[in-house]
C-alpha cells in the first residue's frame, strides 16, 4: 500500500515535472511548423494550457491582450505592404500561451538546483533562469511606466493620449535594451556570458 502510494506520487511528480518541458517543446515545434492546420489546431489547445496554468480564463485573456495587440499591429503592417498572412500572428499567440504556461508551471527551485559544474542541463537551466529574470524585469518596467502614464492621462481618448502611449512603449523598448546591456555586462563580469 505504502509502496503503491509512493509510486503514484512519484508518477504525479514526474508528470508535473514533465509538463512544462512538453509545453516548451510544443512551442518550439510551433515556431518551425509551416502547416496551417497545425497552427489553427494548436491555438485553442495552447490557450487552454495557459488558462489552466493561470487558473482563470479571464486572467489568461487579460494577459494575452498586449501580445494580441502587437500581433494585430504586425498583421496591419503586413497589410500595408500588400501582404495578408496570419501565420506570424497565430505563431506569436500560440508560442506566447505555451511558453507563458510552461513558465508558470516550471519548478524553478529544481531548475536552480540543476546548475552544478558538469551537470548535463546546467547551461539550459542557467539560460532559463536568465530568461525568467529578464521577463520579470520587463514586466515590472511595463507595469510602472503604464501606471505612471495613467497617472497623468485623465481622458483616455483626449489629446496626446495616443502620442503618450506610443512614447511610453518606445521608452519601454529603449529601457529594455539598456537593462539587457547592463544584465549582459553583469553576467560577463561573472564569467557566465561567454
Amino acid at each position: 500500500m505504502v509502496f503503491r502510494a509512493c509510486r503514484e506520487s512519484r508518477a504525479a511528480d514526474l508528470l508535473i515535472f514533465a509538463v512544462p518541458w512538453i509545453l516548451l517543446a510544443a512551442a518550439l515545434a510551433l515556431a518551425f511548423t509551416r502547416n496551417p492546420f497545425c497552427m489553427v489546431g494548436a491555438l485553442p489547445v495552447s490557450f487552454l494550457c495557459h488558462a489552466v496554468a493561470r487558473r482563470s480564463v479571464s486572467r489568461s485573456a487579460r494577459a494575452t491582450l498586449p501580445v494580441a495587440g502587437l500581433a494585430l499591429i504586425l498583421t496591419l503592417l503586413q497589410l500595408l505592404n500588400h501582404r495578408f498572412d496570419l501565420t506570424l500572428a497565430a505563431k506569436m499567440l500560440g508560442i506566447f500561451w505555451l511558453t507563458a504556461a510552461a513558465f508558470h508551471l516550471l519548478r524553478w527551485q529544481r531548475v536552480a538546483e540543476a546548475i552544478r559544474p558538469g551537470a548535463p542541463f546546467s547551461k539550459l537551466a542557467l539560460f532559463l533562469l536568465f530568461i525568467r529574470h529578464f521577463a520579470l524585469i520587463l514586466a515590472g518596467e511595463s507595469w510602472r511606466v503604464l501606471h505612471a502614464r495613467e497617472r497623468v492621462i485623465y481622458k483616455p481618448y483626449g489629446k496626446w493620449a495616443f502620442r503618450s502611449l506610443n512614447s511610453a512603449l518606445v521608452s519601454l523598448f529603449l529601457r529594455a535594451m539598456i537593462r539587457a546591456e547592463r544584465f549582459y555586462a553583469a553576467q560577463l563580469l561573472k564569467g557566465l556570458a561567454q
Partner: protein
Amino acid sequence: MKPVLTVTDLNFSFERGQPVLQQVSFQAMEGECLGIVGCNGAGKSTLLWCLLGLLKASGSVRLFGEKVGKESLARVGMVFQNPEDQLFMPTVLDDVALPLVNRGMQPLRARAIAMEKLRLLGLDKLAGRSAARLSIGERKRACIAACLAPSPELLILDEPTAELDGRSVRLLAGLLAQLDVTLVVSSHDLDFLRRIAPHVLVLCEGRIIADGPASEVLHDPALLRSANLE
C-alpha cells in the same frame, strides 16, 4: 484644517506572501507635510501604491473625503521613486505639458505653463532635451515639475532623495518648503524629513509604530533603533 487623506485599517499582502501592510491608519491634513519614514522593505512604497489604488488593499482610503476614483486622483500628483518611469515623452517640456494638453488645454498655452514650472525648478534650459540625457537629479526635478503642472492639491513623493547628492537634496528641500500643497513624503533620509516634515509616522515591518511631531519622533534614538533607522 480638513483631512486631505484618511487611511483606515489598511492591510495588504502580495499573492501567497507575508503581509506587507498591517492595520495602517493615519491622516494627512490640508497644507501639511507628512513624512513617512521607514527602513528599506518597511512597506513605504507599497503603502503609496495602495493609496492611489494601484495595488488593491483591504481597508479604507479616502482622498478629499471621497473614495479613491478618477475624480479624486485627478487632484493628486505622484513623484515615483525612479524618475525614468515618469518621463517618456520625446522632450522634458512635452512630459510636463502632457497632463495639461490631455485635459483639453491648447498645446501652446500648456507648453507656456510647463515652461514656467520648469523655470521654477531651474530646468528651463533643458526643456528641449530628452529625459534620457538628464542627470538623475535633473530627472527628479523634471518629475516634480510634471506633477506640479496640473496644480495638484496633494503631492506624494516616493523616496525623493534617493540617488541625489547633498546639494540636490538641499535644493529639493527648499523647493518643497515653498510649495503650497499638501505633501506626503516617504523616505528613509531622516535629515531630509527633519527639514521638511513637521508631522511624521514611522513604518516598521508594515505597521505604524509611531505617529507624531517630527521634533519628538525623529529625536527618539530608541524608537529609531527599533525601526532599524539608526
